[in-house]
């Protein structure tokens, strides 16, 4: 097991290095750089920036150095000092800008993950056990709809309903009176009362997918000989189901984190833009539009890092949960 953990850790570090490099390449793809935006903005205001000042700007931000030097300067700062660089547009250190937002993004994504699990497993198990019943058809149908509705569309409809029929805005994470307040119990309760809408919106697509997976897995297990054996032995039906096939079919509980979490973070990004939540989504969108390269890079880096860590944790949990996988790892 220890060897497995070590191997996963090494692999994770390689992945993260690759992510950081790809991110940086992507950020450097657009023709021009941040100074282009500055010049464009100045021209829009009818001003003219002298060339010497532009060169000064480039030197200040290190944009005149070769690509690899820029990359290594950045990544060295990240690894050694936790310094993510400067946001050009905000003129602040990236870390101070995004700390709280990434935290809220993570809270939202993990809460959505828990929501997806809590809803998808009971429904998936139910529709497998009662295959072709009315409830099964209803679950399948809702599942299909859940996969077909884009997250932002659902967010828009929820906001429309809230605005139209309840006369309140469902956007944001805090009521106005708490928005700038320091953290206290009231603010926490206020956050929870606002958080459920985005959680539901973000989680719907994942729930739909997971219901189908759970159902298919459990259906495969239900027809295996060991179930028949247990039944023939006279084990009570509920005990038999919970102890063997349901336990087997719960593996996706862990193994799906790998694809569920990136999906939830993507969903969270766009839903936050629509509902103007103070998470990473809106800031990322703005940064992408103004090519604020260190800000965009840091977002992609942090979100991917957290996803990769989450995936690794789920792999470990899966090894702990499923003896078959554990033995395979011990051999390898």
């Amino acid at each position, binding site marked *: 097991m220890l060897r497995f953990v070590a191997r996963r850790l090494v692999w994770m570090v390689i992945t993260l290095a690759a992510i950081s490099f790809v991110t940086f390449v992507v950020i450097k793809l657009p023709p021009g750089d941040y100074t282009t935006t500055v010049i464009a903005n100045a021209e829009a205001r009818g001003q003219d920036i002298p060339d010497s000042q532009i060169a000064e700007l480039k030197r200040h931000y290190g944009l005149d150095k070769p690509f690899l030097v820029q990359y290594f300067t950045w990544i060295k700062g990240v690894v050694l000092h936790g310094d993510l660089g400067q946001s050009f547009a905000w003129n602040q250190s990236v870390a101070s800008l995004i700390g709280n937002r990434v935290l809220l993004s993570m809270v939202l994504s993990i809460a959505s993950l828990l929501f997806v699990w809590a809803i998808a497993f009971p429904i998936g198990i139910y529709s497998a056990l009662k295959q072709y019943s009315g409830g099964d058809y209803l679950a399948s149908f809702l599942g299909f709809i859940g996969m*077909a509705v884009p997250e932002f569309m659902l967010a828009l409809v929820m906001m429309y309903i809230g*605005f139209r029929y309840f006369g309140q805005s469902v956007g944001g994470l805090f009521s106005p009176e708490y928005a700038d307040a320091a953290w206290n119990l009231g603010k926490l309760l206020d956050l929870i009362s606002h958080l459920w809408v985005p959680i539901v919106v973000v989680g719907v697509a994942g729930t739909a997918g997971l219901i189908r997976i759970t159902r298919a897995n459990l259906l495969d297990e239900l027809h295996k000989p060991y179930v028949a054996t247990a039944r023939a032995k006279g084990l009570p039906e509920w005990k038999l189901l919970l102890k063997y096939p349901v336990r087997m079919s719960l593996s996706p509980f862990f193994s799906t984190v790998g694809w569920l979490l990136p999906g939830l973070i993507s969903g969270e*990004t766009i839903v936050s833009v629509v509902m103007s939540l103070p998470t990473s989504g809106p800031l990322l969108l703005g940064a992408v539009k103004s090519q604020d390269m260190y800000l965009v890079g840091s977002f992609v880096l942090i979100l991917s890092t957290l996803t990769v860590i989450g995936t690794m944790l789920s792999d470990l949990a899966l090894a702990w949960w499923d003896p078959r996988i554990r033995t395979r790892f011990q051999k390898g």
Partner: protein
Amino acid sequence: MVQQTEAIAPDTQHEAPPEVVKSLRDHGALPQWRLMWRQFRRHRLALIGLIVLIPIYFMAVFAGFFAPSSADTAHTALPYAPPQRVHISAEHGMFVYGYSSTRNQETFEQTFTVDKSKIVDVGWFVRGDEYSVVGPIKSNIHLIGPTKAGEAFFLVGADQSGRDLLSRLIHGARVSLSIGLVGVFASFLLGMLIGGISGYVGGRVDNIIQRIIEFIMSVPTLPLWMALSAALPGSWGPLTRYFAITVILSLIGWTGLARDVRGRFLSLREEDFVMAARLDGVGRTGIIFGHMVPSFASHIIASISMAVPRMILAETSLSFLGLGLQPPAVSWGVLLEGAQNIRAVATAPWLLTPGLAVVVVVLAMNFVGDGLRDAADPYK
């Protein structure tokens, strides 16, 4: 799968009893695509999905004819005009009532009321905006529209510049529906190539490719898409941008397909018929394209059909954020960008109809994909 066909294929050397021949003709002797179609037809929802999709694609191809006006014809005096209802009377035939608008003096909000004194005659096959049918062939006949060209005719309402939402919806379908197909074609090429190499060569190459795929899958797609599409120069024309977006979507979307192809290759590599072909001296390309690809083509078609709706959703999301296609290009995502403001949606809920179109199309495609997946293995 292939072994089974061979096992029950009619044996030419020995005469089989007539009842066996009959049952073979009913099952094993049918070509595979006929068997697949049989299986597919049994999947009710898939059939419904297909029936929904065919007219929608037909409408998208002949968008100019089916849309009452061009995508850009604007009635600037009628922003956010509500949908009109078609009335039929003996006196006027088919008609809609016109609008009269008043501006609220306090809020400056424009409100529309149905003005029963203004009657706009509506007819079938009327002349209106000119459009191109195929290339240089032009026409100005529209399926339905106001008989007097240029009058406001909003069956689904108007957008913020007073453009007919229905016309824009039909024109936008061209981009939204085709981007899924083009994008999936691109990721299909990538997936086939890379997945095929991975599965056929195996060993270290396979290991490296699998790690790369895992890497791409572990990155949250939307932030990456956002970053990539922001890298597109704003000066690019709509067509270049369209293809650039397609490439971006397929650069990340090929991984699932590559995994599928690889899995099939791995399992087929050990099959007896591949070994037989190899012993017969068939070359590598011959084995791959002559023997292996045909036997898993149906599975690949099924997974492709599941990838198309994902592409459509991705384009819609990107355009909605203002990072995909840009106006004046029309796609459902671009149309939905106008619905970003919740106040606009509250006054004009019909702005959400492009979203409804997306949901219907994606739902139908998922059903068809589900049916294809079941049908891919007709011998089961």
